[in-house]
């Protein structure tokens, strides 16, 4: 017999607003805002969605309906609520399922991103494991992969040609793993300065059976540049979604981000270009001749990057800027002469 949560057992809400670098670590101790009582009788998935949507709204949780839908769909074994049959959505949930829903939705009350709540997310045709504080791949980055794929496919990445790509700042492994999945002949090297990211990338690689073609290194591209150059051979493609936010913008990030994601994966310094510049500097030594660099950037960066490269990295030629699906300048493509 499961005990019904009484109103007296509502927790006080510990809003963790310390924005300092260590702030996110304290988020583990954030207690939930008023978790609603578990229903006395049976409810359907649709009723659960409705209940939690309302509850998220009452507690100022963003995307209340989507959050509720994704969590409940996940517990029913689906990616989205829309991919479930109407019949299933009106069937009563078991006691265990209901308790699970309550447990997961309660995590969302602390503004934990849905991806961390359900511990997975889609990236193109892959399902990747997600775990705080490793950076959650953004939809824009799916397009970065498309750009690289288009070029590599044109270069004819066939059985004859051995191509390798290198990724700086792999996070959960999204970019590298996606490329490896789409190009069976490709090999990849993924780097990250975060041990958590390295571990998660390894885990995802194993889950997807791609570990044989992927090398993962715990390397800081700024501090360990010499080590990096020593251990790798020239590659055909260099890809990166490096931290590119301006430091001053870090303070206005939504709680989902500043409380749970690694700030080192976001903060690009005063002009957001700290890591980007280092990647550009090292590119000529990492790339083989005519190899290309693909980098995701802040919308204000492209002209700045073009100028800076012309003045400082003569072996690199700025080729083009591509926009993302929302129409913002987002990707820079450069080529080694």
């Amino acid at each position, binding site marked *: 017999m499961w005990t019904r949560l009484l109103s007296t057992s509502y927790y006080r809400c510990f809003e963790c607003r310390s924005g300092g670098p260590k702030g996110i670590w304290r988020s583990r101790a954030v207690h939930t805002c008023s978790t609603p009582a578990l229903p006395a009788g049976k409810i359907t998935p649709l009723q659960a969605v409705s209940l939690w949507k309302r509850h998220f709204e009452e507690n100022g949780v963003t995307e209340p309906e989507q959050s509720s839908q994704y969590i409940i769909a996940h517990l029913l074994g689906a990616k989205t609520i829309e991919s479930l049959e109407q019949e299933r959505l009106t069937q009563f949930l078991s006691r265990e399922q209901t308790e699970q829903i309550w447990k997961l939705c309660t995590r969302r009350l602390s503004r934990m991103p849905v991806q961390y709540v359900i511990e997975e997310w889609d990236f*193109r045709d892959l399902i990747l494991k997600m775990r705080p504080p490793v950076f959650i791949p953004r939809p824009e980055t799916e397009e970065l992969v498309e750009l690289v794929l288009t070029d590599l496919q044109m270069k004819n990445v066939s059985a004859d040609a051995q191509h390798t790509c290198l990724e700086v700042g792999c996070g959960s492994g999204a970019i590298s793993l996606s490329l490896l999945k789409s190009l069976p002949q490709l090999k990849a090297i993924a780097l990250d300065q975060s041990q958590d990211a390295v571990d998660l990338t390894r885990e995802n690689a194993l889950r997807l059976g791609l570990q044989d073609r992927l090398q993962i290194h715990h390397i800081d591209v700024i501090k360990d540049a010499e080590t990096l150059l020593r251990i790798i051979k020239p590659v055909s493609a260099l890809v990166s979604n490096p931290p590119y936010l301006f430091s001053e913008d870090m303070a206005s990030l939504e709680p989902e981000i500043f409380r749970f994601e690694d700030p080192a994966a976001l903060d690009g310094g005063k002009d957001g270009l700290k890591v980007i510049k280092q990647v550009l500097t090292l590119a000529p030594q990492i790339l083989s001749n005519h190899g290309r660099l693909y980098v995701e950037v802040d919308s204000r960066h492209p002209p700045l990057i073009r100028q800076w490269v012309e003045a400082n990295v003569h072996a690199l030629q700025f080729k083009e800027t591509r926009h993302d699906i929302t129409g913002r300048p987002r990707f820079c493509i450069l080529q080694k002469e």
Partner: protein
Amino acid sequence: MSAFVPITSFVRSASCRLTWKGSPRVLQLLTPNPAGLTCVLAAGKKDLINLPVLVEDELEEQFVRGSGPGGQATNKTSNCVVLKHIPTGIVVKCHQTRSVDINRKRAREIMREKLDVAYKGDLSEVVLKKKESVLRKQEKRRKANENLERKRLFKDALAADSKPGSDTV
């Protein structure tokens, strides 16, 4: 996930081999069915070669991504894609996965099917597939009934044989 249509007697009569190496080939067989109509059978992925090709300029795409800076600065999970075909006004909504990229691709596949129906009506792939499926079901039912009938007659025959002196007609 290929929409593989199991081909039974049609394949045997046409003696074709299906190969799945690389991208699945579209197998089309024109074969007269008992009723005298021609059926077009297609096996393989949903992007059948007969579906209309989409012109990106004729499409309007919409997905919620907010007005802020986007990119790393946001973590929005809404990735439902709404695709509109301007000339016909047909709208497709797709939220099958949690990937914007995949939803966009699927929305386009669905749009191609819808345009096919809009342009070709009864001759569209979707309608033809439905008809073919209905015919196959009817065929199955007919065979099942036939079998039952045969069994019944056999049983009757047995029963008649085992009763000595009874009338056998």
